């Protein structure tokens, strides 16, 4: 069971997909010789050729639009968007074309297209390189939106995304790209299921991507004060595995949802709204949301203050328990 960085785990997932399905093509800006700015496609063009690992012109609408065309022709494109902030030129192709094609054609035309997006902050990047835009896509019917948080999921979820037959927005937390972890062959959890990554009985913490580790750290810290926090990695935002979440919150009666995106209208709102309804009679405190402040992502020097950290998560836990 090798130790792989999240980036390397994605690379091996792509390699597996390219080896086992001749229809799979990888495409994007600088994914060829360079191997992508995060090296996720490192070596793939060398091994599978420029016809299957395609350096594209610099045009995101073109990347997604041509991927749709390739899918119509029977291919399974995996697109890389170089940074989260650069997916917007492709927004129309994604929400009006990719997401809707199946419904528009009454189920006749499926578009198995995966769009990989390095997401979020914490790497000291310049503007437009630390965005968390999952709420836009989670609200868009016809897309699956998934988030990996570590190497094991990165490898398997990417393979599942390529195989699932639906359009998938696949988020990769930048600040975890170089974190190493085991990637093993155990039967993976289905793509659309949440995972309890740390059990506990006092408060349920819901997180995805980069904030999963933040919540695990918070749980460890809380444990020293005798508080048992349950941490759930949502993994799939759309569809959302509400059963797993509700089961937990019904037990704990308290819930804090944590993400990097600004809180206002963020994905945490959907979680809070859904749990507020589903678990109304079990809640002993309101579902609290911890996220980025409602600002455009700040300059790098301020991102530590902007991003939810251990202290802000624990503060929310305290407020929840104090209710």
């Amino acid at each position, binding site marked *: 069971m090798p130790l792989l960085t999240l980036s390397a785990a994605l690379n091996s997932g792509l390699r597996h997909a390219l080896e086992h399905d001749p229809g799979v093509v990888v495409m994007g800006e600088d994914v060829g010789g360079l191997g992508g700015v995060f090296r996720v496609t490192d070596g793939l063009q060398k091994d599978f050729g420029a016809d299957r690992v395609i350096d594209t012109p610099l045009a995101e609408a*073109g990347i997604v639009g*041509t991927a749709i065309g*390739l899918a119509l022709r029977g291919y399974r494109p995996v697109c890389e968007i170089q940074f989260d902030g650069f997916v917007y030129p492709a927004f129309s192709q994604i929400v009006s074309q990719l997401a809707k094609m199946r*419904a528009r054609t009454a189920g006749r035309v499926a578009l198995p297209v995966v769009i990989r997006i390095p997401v979020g902050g914490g790497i000291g990047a310049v503007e437009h390189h630390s965005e968390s835009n999952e709420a836009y896509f989670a609200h868009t019917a016809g897309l699956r939106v998934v988030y990996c948080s570590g190497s094991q999921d990165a490898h398997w979820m990417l393979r599942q995304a390529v195989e699932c037959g639906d359009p998938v927005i696949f988020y990769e937390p930048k600040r975890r790209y170089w974190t190493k972890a085991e990637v093993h062959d155990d039967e993976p959890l289905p793509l659309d299921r949440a995972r309890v990554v740390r059990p506990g009985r006092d408060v349920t913490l819901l997180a995805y991507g980069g904030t999963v580790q933040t919540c695990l750290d918070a749980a460890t810290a809380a444990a020293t004060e005798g508080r048992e926090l349950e941490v759930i990695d949502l993994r799939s935002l759309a569809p959302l595995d509400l059963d797993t979440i509700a089961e937990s919150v019904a037990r704990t009666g308290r819930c804090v949802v944590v993400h990097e995106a600004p809180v206002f209208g963020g994905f945490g709102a959907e979680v809070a709204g859904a749990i507020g309804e589903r678990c109304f009679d079990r809640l002993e405190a309101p579902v609290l949301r911890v996220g980025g402040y409602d600002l455009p992502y700040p300059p790098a020097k301020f991102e530590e203050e902007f991003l939810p950290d251990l202290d802000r998560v624990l503060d929310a836990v305290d407020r929840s328990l104090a209710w």
Partner: protein
Amino acid sequence: MEKPVEPVQLLDPDGRLTPDPRWPLEITPDLCRDLYRRMVLARRFDDEALALQRQGELGLWLQSRGQEAAQVGSVTALRPDDHVFPSYREQAAALCRGITPEELLVQWRGNAHSGWDPAAYRFHVYTLVLAAQLPQATGYAMGVQRDGADEIVAVYFGDGASSQGEASEALNWAASAGVPLLFFCQNNQWAISTPTSTQMRAPLHQRAAGFGLDAHLVDGNDVLAVHAVTAGVAEQIRAGGGPALIEATTYRMGGHSTSDDPGRYRSDSELDSWRARDPIARMEILLDREGWIDEAGRAALRLESDDLAAETRRVCRAIPKGEFSALFGTVLTSEPPHLTDQRQRHTALVASYLD
């Protein structure tokens, strides 16, 4: 700036034939009769659909009147297995591919978002978001290229759509990737109320050449010229010559749609000047003069048109509404729990009214 290019024309508005050595075409009675028949049927269908909308049977209709030559001349010059990406006004082309009146009407009646199986006809569903089909056609052509197939791909779009960034991204991408793709622009002079002059300074074919495409300008109301140029260009593309663009000069003789009021922005005299260049009329003159069609032939075509019109009325009114609850299963490959839940609650709620 470059000096204006003259559009290729073989058959002038007065029905005079002038062959063009650059675009050899064997002009046989059969070819002319066939193209004429397709244009006549297309216009009749279009008129009937317009009438159905006026009667409230369709929510909206976008006429192809005036653009029959551009569509019929081009699509018949392609191979049946050449994949086509239409915009939303290509019923004349669609009929040539065998798409049925019912399949063409269902979307405008509001029963579905699209009417036919694109794979069955090698004809993609209509795209209403302007220019969105252009990068998609480019990607499809990348697939053809990778398959080493000898098919080509054709994509239709309008003068207005050409201003969209996605149109230029496709022109540039197709050129740099060298894919087997034919861009076919019906420049019908208007984008709703916006004239081509507001849309662009230089003609589109010049722009396409600037991107490195092989580009041509053709009289879009001359079905023979459109057919000859499309056939020639398609052959080049099939032979590996890379993508090309054909700009067909034509005119949208109706309003933009049945919701439009063209009187607000264009003159009758302009309309008249284009009526004089009607694509069907000039072919009629030719057929008459050459004696390539006789009274029997005309009668047969009248009969066929009447049947098509009657059939169109019949199938339109007979289109089944379908089940709302069926939509929930069309969003993803498998219906997710929350949609199942919503579907069931909706069905229960609807049932509860009936009690």
